[in-house]
């Protein structure tokens, strides 16, 4: 049964040094506040999984919190490369970074298989693609009926999944609307989960019967953090802060500038700042 608690408590109780953690979000609903809280609490040696690592993983890698990255597309969406990640891969700064690299299809299927309790995912993939050479976690099996060769990857089974969503009920049921990405699968594939939400409501009586809802007993921890996905967006609440994504390209270009920015905007801040950051981006209801 989900605990409704502060983000600080949720991170302290659920994320341990050395854990495998999936902070998921597909452009929409990226859990920035939870990633920042994880950095403030000094977590280290994390293996982080994500289809589209962007600013938050650039920040976590740049701060030296990450031992290994499992991913399929590492970019600053609509802007360019991830400079802190490049620095770690190319120059081992601030530490060496192990990488396990997949395609989007493989990652999505691996979450799906994890949610489905399977040890692996089978899909038609990786034909003629060179990742097969460098990633030992890509294998092939034959369809026992047609003989067709199909790709296989291990299911994702993170220790913790961390996502941001629109709403939770007081019991801890969670509603995700719009571009839902792989967040439901990430939570269902994980041993524990933290969900930050814009608001907590009495019930979901007015919600569509087939909307994406995670029942309270599938979620470990719910924390209310308005604006918690900034500079990503939350459909129905606030728009994407495109300027911040552009700004990140400059901040992340220099180690000193990056460290100073992180000290000021992450390490010395609290989750409450996120509500202020989205004030000018509010969507008209």
């Amino acid at each position: 049964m989900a605990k409704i608690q502060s983000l600080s408590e949720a991170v302290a109780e659920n994320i341990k040094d050395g854990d495998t953690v999936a902070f998921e979000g597909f452009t929409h609903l990226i859990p920035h506040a939870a990633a920042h809280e994880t950095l403030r609490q000094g977590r280290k040696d994390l293996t982080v999984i994500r289809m589209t690592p962007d600013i938050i993983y650039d920040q976590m890698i740049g701060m030296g919190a990450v031992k290994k990255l499992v991913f399929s597309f590492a970019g600053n969406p609509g802007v360019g490369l991830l400079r802190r990640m490049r620095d770690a891969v190319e120059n081992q700064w601030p530490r060496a970074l192990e990488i396990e690299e997949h395609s989007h299809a493989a990652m999505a299927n691996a979450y799906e298989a994890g949610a489905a309790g399977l040890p692996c995912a089978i899909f038609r993939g990786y034909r003629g693609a060179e990742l097969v050479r460098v990633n030992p976690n890509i294998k092939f099996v034959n369809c026992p009926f047609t003989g067709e060769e199909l790709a296989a990857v291990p299911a994702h089974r993170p220790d913790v999944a961390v996502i941001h969503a629109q709403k939770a009920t007081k019991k801890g049921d969670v509603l995700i609307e719009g571009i839902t990405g792989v967040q439901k699968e990430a939570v269902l594939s994980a041993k524990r989960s933290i969900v930050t939400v814009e608001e907590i409501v009495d019930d979901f009586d007015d919600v569509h019967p087939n909307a994406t809802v995670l029942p309270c007993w599938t979620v470990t921890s719910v924390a209310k953090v308005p604006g918690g996905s900034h500079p990503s967006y939350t459909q129905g609440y606030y728009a994407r802060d495109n300027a911040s994504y552009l700004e990140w390209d400059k901040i992340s270009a220099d180690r000193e500038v990056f460290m100073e920015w992180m000290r000021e905007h992450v390490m010395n801040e609290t989750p409450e700042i996120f509500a202020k950051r989205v004030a000018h981006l509010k969507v008209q209801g």
Partner: protein
Amino acid sequence: MTNFTSTEMMTVAAARALKNSDVCFVGIGAPSAACNLARLTHAPDITLIYESGTIGTAPDVLPLSIGDGELCDTAVTTVSVPEMFRYWLQGGRITVGFLGGAQLDKFGNINTTVVGDYDNPKVRLPGGGGAPEIAVSCGEIFITMKQSLRGFVDKLDFITSLGHGTGGTDRADKGVTTKGPSRLITDLAIWEPDPETKEFTVTSLHQGATREQVAETVGWKAKFAAELSETPLPTAEELEVLRDLHARTKAAHSGN
């Protein structure tokens, strides 16, 4: 005829290659502009799909990312990402996929992973994302890239996604039944694979582009079709719609 840029020519040429009945897997940048230009001109019923899960979108402005809220707001439906890759891409429902990348070879194989050695890269690029399966699951692939010696290389540092492999029947030999790269649209020309060798061959030159320019900006010996066309110029309507789209986009995205 008004003036136009080579990027505009490239976008217009890509848009024209799309049919009203196409179902397109759209990437950000040039493909997004081309697909939406097609939708706003000759292909009003074209289906645009972004890998974030939005199916049948009709954005008023170009998205900055493949998961912008407007894509969802204007979509026929928005599905989860596992469903997108399983039912829609792998399910064989996409007629045209767009790809581009840091490096391209003459068989349409693409690198978006690393420059240099994989384990000790000179430049760590973003990686493949959807490309490895887009390349093999879509009915055919259109590639849009500006020509340059850095990008059009004789040998890729890494094969992120399969084109025609080593040429000839190599793609089919790998068990891939889709057509693969059927068109390469650059700022200078349109290239199509030779029916036999599958090597990209220039079939149409854009206005003002010369064979020499084309040949000098690729890292292999460029082949030209026996009958070389000249790409029809962008029409006034195409340019107006495209420029309006970019103007709306710029206004919307700087509005915050």
